[in-house]
């Protein structure tokens, strides 16, 4: 190996990119609209983790990244930074969601009923054998369905622990708060967190490092209206609808400061249809704000520092991959320190 000439880098990355693009160029034959429809769960995940609601851009990003969803989310985040923010939309209440699916595993019968909707929960995962499911669609009504949360009756009966509301709502994309983190910031971090990381952390609380044992009180998928105050007319206008998933879990009972005993719950919600992420988020919300009974504190999913700083896919992916960058200066420095320590140990033996 000769001396690494300084002009090599330019050519090398150009060629490397060309190789990469050639390797995934088959996507030239695929329309972004095909991705949007056929791979909707991928698209939804990218919108959620990329923190930008655009099915069109998310589909394009999936194509541009050859199906690597983390990279696709990264495209959306980068794009987001070049967009000015118009303002803050009105609060969306997921109870007002036009539901496509709503289930509760806490109650057998609930107001509005169990609506299974589109789900692959009971799909038998046989990759080769495929029989078409024929549905008699006309047996179903096609009117919009709105149902209150299955946990509402418990809340109305004052059985559910409530947390104090933040006085001002954080925007983590404008000011990232220091500890102790406001709840709105924590929820925002989770709403755009990486599904797999959140699943992993939530799972630790289910086996081994916690005992919250969540029961899904209300899990819903559907679309919500986004309302905005028009900057000129100051009228409230509907600017569109977004698909969302929301989940409320009920956990255990906890003694409150006023001596009463209340049911603890957690909430999760994200862009698009992503049940695993919404459930994971609702579990993390529960573990963060309620103490575990058996292991007390010292779990993994009950640690704000742990969750707030380690679930962002764009950040963890970027940093993990940065170890591919050259580190020869730092390694050289480490080697010299090691050499000194080795000599120090040797000198010690002589004595």
């Amino acid at each position, binding site marked *: 190996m000769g001396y690494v000439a300084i002009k*090599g*880098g*330019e050519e090398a990355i150009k060629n490397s990119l060309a190789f990469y693009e050639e390797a995934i160029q088959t996507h030239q034959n695929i329309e972004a609209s095909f991705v949007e429809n056929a791979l909707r769960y991928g698209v939804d995940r990218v919108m959620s983790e990329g923190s930008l609601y655009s099915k069109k851009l998310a589909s394009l990003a999936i194509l541009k990244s050859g199906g690597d969803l983390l990279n696709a989310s990264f495209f959306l985040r*980068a794009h987001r*930074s070049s967009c000015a923010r118009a303002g803050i939309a009105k609060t969306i209440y997921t109870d007002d969601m036009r539901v496509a699916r709503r289930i509760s595993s806490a109650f057998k019968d609930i107001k509005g009923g169990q609506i299974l909707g589109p789900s692959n929960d009971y799909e038998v995962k046989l990759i080769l054998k495929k029989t078409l499911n024929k549905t008699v669609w006309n047996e179903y009504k096609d009117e919009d369905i709105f149902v209150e949360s299955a946990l509402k009756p418990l809340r109305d009966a004052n059985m559910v622990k409530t947390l104090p509301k933040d006085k001002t709502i954080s925007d983590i994309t404008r000011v990232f708060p220091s500890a102790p983190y406001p709840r709105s910031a924590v929820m925002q971090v989770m709403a755009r967190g990486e599904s797999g990381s959140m699943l992993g952390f939530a799972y630790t609380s289910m086996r081994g490092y916690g005992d919250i044992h969540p029961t899904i009180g209300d899990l819903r998928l559907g679309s919500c209206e986004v309302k905005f105050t028009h900057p000129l007319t100051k009228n409230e206008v509907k600017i569109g609808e977004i698909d969302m998933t929301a989940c409320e879990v009920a956990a255990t009972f906890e003694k409150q400061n006023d001596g009463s005993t209340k049911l603890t719950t957690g909430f999760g919600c994200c862009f698009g249809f992503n049940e695993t992420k919404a459930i994971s988020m609702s579990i993390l919300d529960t573990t963060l704000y309620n103490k575990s009974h058996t292991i007390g504190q010292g779990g993994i999913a009950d640690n704000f520092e742990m969750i707030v700083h380690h679930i962002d896919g764009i950040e963890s992916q970027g940093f993990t991959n940065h170890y591919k960058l*050259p*580190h020869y*200066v730092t390694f050289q420095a480490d080697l010299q320190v090691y050499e000194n*320590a080795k000599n120090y140990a040797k000198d010690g033996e002589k004595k």
Partner: protein
Amino acid sequence: MRYGFLDEDAKKEIRRATLKAIAIPGYQVSFASRELPIARGWGTGGLQVTLSIINEDDCLKVIDQGCDGSVNAVNIRNFIVSVTDNATTLDTQEATIIQSRHRIPEEPLKEGQTLVLQVPYPEVLTNVEADSFKQKVMHANSDYAKLWVLLYEDTAQFGDSRIGHRYPVMVHDRYAMDPSPIPKYDTRKLHNNKALILLGAGREKKIYAIPPYTKVEPLKFEDRAFKVESFENKKCARCGASGVFMDEVHTDDGTVKYYCNDTAYCDKKLEGKL
């Protein structure tokens, strides 16, 4: 595309954070940190600082591990040029802004220049205290006892600190600071440097600074010398320079050769300009 990629609100915010950082040397100022088209951990903190301070008259130099031609340096330089159309240079003297990863150039910096260092771990206390709230309290109280204990334990076991790079420094007798992963050879250059040194951590969302002519000292016991990397009796196999930070290169025939790590310095030396 907007000049400097970031929207104006973002630039304003980063400039404000930067000004605050300069006003409190060594103190980490939080900022929102935008995602960039370059991955987190690849220099997005430095990039955001550079993109928010650069103007049309600036001449830019980008280095990675001492080298202007390293893939990441090329990539970052190309990106900045694509969103600013600014002039670039390899010459340390010519540059008004130098963005660097893991090195401070061999040629001394001068007044009016800005060195932007990319930072992976801005928090010097991370290895001794993981909780960011407690870290903040420790900084507020100038309580660096845990760092001293770490230094003591290392010295007792290994004769010296085990920290090879990003050696903790004390800035202006007040804040302990992580100087980014520069070798100890470069740590000394932080002291009374004529240039403004800005440090940006994108993923960790922190900006901090060492203004020109600031007292910066490595954290060490007063009866122990601060040992830097040494390349005694080594000469650059290309330009013949000695007494600089070297790359150790293992050749195919099994011999070991040494070259200047700062490639721009090596070029200049070879051309007889130094």
